[in-house]
């Protein structure tokens, strides 16, 4: 029972990070019908910039409280990630908006490689230690433990998602986004500037990814130029699981996938009689992805079909 609670907690933490990244995928997919393959690398950029800010703070204001440092790192990483993602859209995707589907997809892969290469040039190729800022004193929840960083992560993810829901449901920009997602042509006829909406979508997605990136670093204590690929793929799986194009779906999908993954890692050994161990954790996301796409391509919340090319 304790393992169960522990794995659910781990799953929530993992899942809320996936959810933050999945939102970026799903929003871009909603307005452009495009998978931004480089989105995982935006998470990496966020983490790297966050780390650089922390190092800078450490050398200039050594006495700053740790929580404040982390807050500044997150706030500082957001605009950089936004800028990067908006630039990607401008340089690599905008010209290909009406091209056949294979073209933007391959460009996106190219952009992903480029981002990793730039990160390699700036921050080097070896893993960098991410400082543990919050107290490592664990909090006990019904026999299971959760670290303070993880609690903060859950709170931040919840806040970011609430802010996003507010933005999409209550503001003019949100209405414009929903309109473009529904039908870009008609939205344009109604006076919505679709380019502005698309740029805003990329920016918001990047902001969420940056938050996830810094918290990823804080949680796992080590970051690297290639760290974005796997979370990116898993977040995409989460978006598909929830129903791609649907922001609530992305949140639910992220959390569900996180829980599936950590429960799977916890119990796979028992299930397969010791043949497969917990280091197979990473396959769950892909198995879920393939299952969802074959059984229910519209995901938990969505109505869209997977059969678009």
């Amino acid at each position: 029972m304790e393992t169960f609670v522990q794995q659910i907690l781990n799953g929530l933490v993992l899942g809320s990070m996936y959810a933050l990244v999945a939102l970026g995928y799903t929003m871009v997919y909603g307005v452009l019908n495009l998978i931004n393959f480089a989105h995982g690398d935006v998470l990496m950029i966020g983490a790297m910039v966050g780390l650089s800010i922390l190092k800078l703070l450490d050398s200039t204001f050594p006495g700053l409280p740790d929580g404040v440092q982390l807050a500044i790192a997150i706030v500082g990483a957001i605009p950089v990630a936004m800028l990067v993602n908006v630039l990607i859209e401008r340089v690599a995707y905008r010209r290909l908006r009406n091209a056949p589907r294979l073209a933007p997809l391959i460009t996106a892969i190219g952009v992903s490689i480029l981002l990793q290469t730039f990160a390699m040039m700036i921050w080097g190729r070896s893993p960098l230690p991410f400082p543990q800022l919050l107290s490592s004193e664990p909090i006990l929840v019904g026999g299971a433990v959760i670290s303070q960083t993880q609690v903060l992560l859950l709170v931040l993810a919840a806040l970011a998602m609430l802010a996003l829901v507010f933005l999409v449901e209550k503001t003019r920009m949100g209405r414009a986004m929903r309109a473009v997602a529904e039908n870009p042509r008609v939205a344009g006829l109604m006076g919505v500037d679709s380019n502005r909406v698309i740029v805003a979508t990329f920016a918001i997605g990047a902001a969420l990814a940056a938050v996830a990136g810094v918290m990823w670093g804080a949680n796992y204590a080590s970051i690297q130029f290639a760290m974005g690929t796997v979370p990116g793929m898993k977040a995409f799986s989460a978006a598909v699981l929830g129903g791609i194009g649907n922001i609530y779906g992305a949140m639910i999908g992220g959390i569900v996938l996180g829980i599936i993954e950590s429960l799977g890692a916890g119990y796979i050994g028992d299930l397969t009689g010791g043949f497969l161990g917990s280091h197979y954790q990473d396959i769950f996301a892909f198995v879920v992805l393939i299952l969802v796409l074959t059984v229910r391509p519209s995901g938990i919340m969505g109505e869209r079909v997977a059969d678009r090319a």
Partner: protein
Amino acid sequence: MALITFDTAHKPRQAYANMALLLAVMLAFPFVAAQFGNSWVRILDMALLYIMLALGLNIVVGFAGLLDLGYIAFFAVGAYLTGLLASPQFAALLESLINYHPEVSDTVVRLFGEEVRTNGIHLSVWAIVPLAGLTAALFGALLGAPTLKLRGDYLAIVTLGFGEIIRIFMNNLNDPINFTNGPQGINLIDPIRIFGVSLAGEAGSRATVFVGGFGMPSVNAYYFLFLALCIVTIFMTGRLQHSRLGRAWVAIREDEIAAKAMGINTRNVKLLAFSMGASFGGVAGAMFAAFQGFVSPESFSLTESISVLAMVVLGGIGHIPGVVLGGVLLAALPEVLRHVVEPAQQALFGKVLIEAEVLRQLLYGLAMVLIMLNRPAGLWPSPVKEDRPVAATDMEEKEEGAPA
């Protein structure tokens, strides 16, 4: 590129003359290159393997329009199969199996004789190549089956996930039953023997291969083998492209629903694309394992899948000579960079500012983005009259201005 034509249908004389000339150059190359050291021939060996891979991937991506980002998995399947069946690794597998399923290992021992327990199985290349091709084709169909409904980006991400799954298994299938020897990889893989002649050279011959009375370095021997395999691959994919099946692939690529309406069994045809493309990858993998004598999961990362895709994209999606060009350019590029750019930086700045490896990544990424933005059909696209991917025709329509 108009000077070099391989268009046998329209300019047969020029095309065959070009082919003969190219073949002569290719055959003479190792003897010239060997003067500058074996490393250059070695580079060419690897380039030829990558060309085989790129040609295989071209069937899936270029002909059938199915973006496969897990292609390197088939390369891995071929390589690991060879590792398992042509090295002492099989003995390790039996040893770990004996505690779990003694009956299985007993059967194997009864089949192959007692020395399997200590020595493993040592299959010859003639058995391994078809086995590797078939096994990879089976994996190709396995990947294809659940993804039949998907196209475009969904397919891409699922295949990417499939590649990752294979890699995770390669990394972890050493415990409790030792198939892959985990992250350490499989060592001591037998070199290829053709009619009793080992292409790695006999022991004590300083890696010189003697055919008749004539000796040549081991890398040259492998070069000729890989060249022959490449030519076979080019021939086969070329014939496939213009077969009924090839037409069906193009039809699916251009408009799946229309293809279905015309009576094409899209499910079978797509599965065939996956497994035929995969089989070339499997054979290339088997060759790679025998050539290196060693396989480990590191050689089969996502980056490698993307490299092969970059070759196809850079050269010309769906156009065989273009894909070969892309393969040559991108496979030789890192080595050229290592031999030219690093010393140049050393001379100019007194230190290496950008490592060749980083530069290689940079160029791969840039190539993919710039090619897609500016020349979506690749550096050497198919002639207009042939079937081109939509990416190309789309641009032309814009230039010519489609009639209203």
